[in-house]
């Protein structure tokens, strides 16, 4: 076991009947890190988390926590605790009872229980709520109780299954900050499952993107956003414009790709002439001009402009009908239905190798939220 990998997931597979929900997943979680498993619903992320917690058994493969094989360990024998999506508070116990439950069952002296519960209540900013029943709490308060209850055993790893999905936007933002603060303060390893890419980007040390039971990419948020390894990652995290085509020329790290609307360029290594690729350009990296520019451009017509406060979003339609999204700091408004010339810096285009399961077409498509 490497010194820093606290949780090791090694080639696990999970079948429900003939349904292959987790495929050959290998993932190391380092001690003290905030790792987010990100994916759309049904991608196997929650199942993976539940296998670490012990509620599900992998069909094959191994999971180690702190170097110990978890295969024979019951959920109650594992040094991990879970914050459930539904909070799963015990409805017949007060806030104090909920948090103290694990300690009481371990027959820890009453005085110590009291002190530890009170400390943790302060930590999650719920001091004075200990006598309330779960039914008398708001969603955010229930969430804090669930977190406090999971933390009181001082686990090595805290598993969080979409803990904020039931909260409204404002509260969710606030809880994101608070969770991050808690994680730093307690120095506990967090494995956090979410489908919200923004949440993942803002909270995580590293993100593991899952799709269809497979791990697509693991990396720090900047890597995931700026250097997506697959078409899925490029489109799932943030908005992007995808062009699909064939590499027409390679000159050092300058790569030209022939797409339906012409030839576009990017900067990448490891590509060969004749290869089918996808090119991802983020909307905020798109440059535009109302008059023809030197070098490569793609011409289109401004179809729509949406003002969202901090930025102005525009949709440009190409002659072949595909829509390209661009995002600018709010400023000048483009003439509607007027011609616009799009281009970008070669380094702002990300070339992506196709994966087995992905079908590439030699046309460009814009992918929007």
């Amino acid at each position, binding site marked *: 076991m490497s010194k820093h990998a606290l949780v090791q997931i090694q080639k696990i597979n999970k079948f429900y009947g003939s349904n292959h929900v987790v495929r050959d997943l290998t993932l190391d979680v380092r001690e003290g890190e905030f790792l987010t498993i990100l994916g759309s619903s049904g991608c196997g992320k929650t199942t993976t988390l539940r296998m670490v917690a012990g509620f599900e058994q992998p069909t094959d493969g191994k999971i180690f926590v702190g170097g110990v094989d978890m295969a024979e360990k019951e959920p109650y024998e594992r040094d991990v605790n879970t914050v459930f999506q539904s909070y799963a508070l015990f409805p017949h116990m007060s806030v104090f009872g909920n948090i103290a439950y*694990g300690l009481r069952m*371990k027959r820890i002296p009453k005085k110590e229980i009291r002190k530890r519960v009170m400390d943790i209540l302060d930590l999650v900013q719920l001091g004075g709520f200990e006598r309330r029943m779960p039914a008398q709490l708001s969603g955010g308060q229930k969430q804090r109780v669930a977190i406090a209850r999971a933390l009181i055993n001082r686990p090595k790893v805290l598993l969080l299954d979409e803990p904020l999905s039931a909260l409204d936007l404002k509260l969710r933002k606030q809880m994101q900050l608070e969770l991050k603060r808690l994680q730093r303060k307690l120095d506990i390893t967090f494995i956090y499952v979410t489908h919200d890419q923004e949440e993942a980007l803002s909270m995580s040390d590293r993100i593991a993107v899952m799709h269809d039971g497979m791990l697509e990419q693991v990396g720090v948020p900047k890597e995931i956003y700026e250097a997506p390894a697959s078409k899925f990652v490029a489109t799932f995290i943030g908005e992007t414009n995808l062009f699909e085509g064939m590499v027409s020329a390679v000159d050092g790290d300058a790569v030209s790709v022939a797409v339906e609307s012409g030839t576009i360029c990017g900067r990448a290594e490891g590509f060969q002439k004749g290869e089918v690729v996808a090119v991802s350009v983020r909307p905020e990296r798109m440059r535009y001009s109302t008059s023809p520019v030197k070098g490569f451009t793609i011409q289109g017509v401004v179809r729509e402009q949406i003002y969202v406060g901090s930025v102005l979003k525009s949709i440009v339609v190409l002659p072949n009908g595909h829509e390209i999204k661009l995002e600018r700091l709010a400023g000048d408004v483009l003439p509607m239905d007027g011609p616009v010339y799009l281009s970008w810096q070669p380094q702002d285009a990300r070339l992506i190798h196709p994966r087995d399961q992905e079908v590439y077409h030699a046309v460009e498509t814009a992918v929007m939220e």
Partner: protein
Amino acid sequence: MRRKKSERLRRRAGAVYCGLIYAFLFLPIVVIVVNSFNATESKPYLSWKGFTFDWYGRLLQNAALLDSFRNTLLLAAVSTILSTIIGTIAAVGMFKYRFRGKSVIDALLYIPVVIPEIVLGIALLTLFATVNIPRGMLSLVLAHVTFCIPFVIFNVRARLDGYDQSIEEASMDLGVGRLKTFFHITLPVLAPGIGGGALLAFTLSIDDVIVSYFTNGQTKTFPLKVMESIKSGVAPDVNALSTLILVFTVLLVVLTQSGLIRRLRRKR
């Protein structure tokens, strides 16, 4: 002005109507209670001959009646406990696990409920005779447990509706084993359903006549004893015992409705 008048009339009519319904419901009970204090000896006890506690005294000497009452209490207690345990386990099992033929078993549960009691009684008697179970307390318990189980299951299952199984996972997640989780989490959360089922089972058992009639052998339960004695009008000491049961029941209802028990428990 006129409107006010018609409004008053309507209210009065409503009050009278309600009064009649309640009279219809409660008059027979009042008759029983009054007659338990009526000093008349001549059947059918329709005239008031003065107030007396005699019947209550007589009741204490009526060994057969008291014996039957004791039988009924014992029978109700035992069959309530058994049917509650069996029914709860069945409801939890049917909620948690999927298995083949589950829908059939689900549907079959309604049979003992909708089947005419007389058919159930005959069926049970035939069964007991065939497998040689002696008719008496044992067969009575078996019979009562049989028709109580579905009611317990229905009650517990109603409580399970909307029961979040992840609280059991949360308990195990916190380091608590399966058995302890059942007793500290599952059972307390289901308690209202289980309690309701038990109460229903107790009520059903305590006043059952028809099934008991077929399966009792020589053992007399209170309802059977009463049936026997009313051939010549309701005996006054039966009135007395009925009144006592009534007082006890009403007291119990008042206690639970007023939340007194809950308050006492919380204090503890």
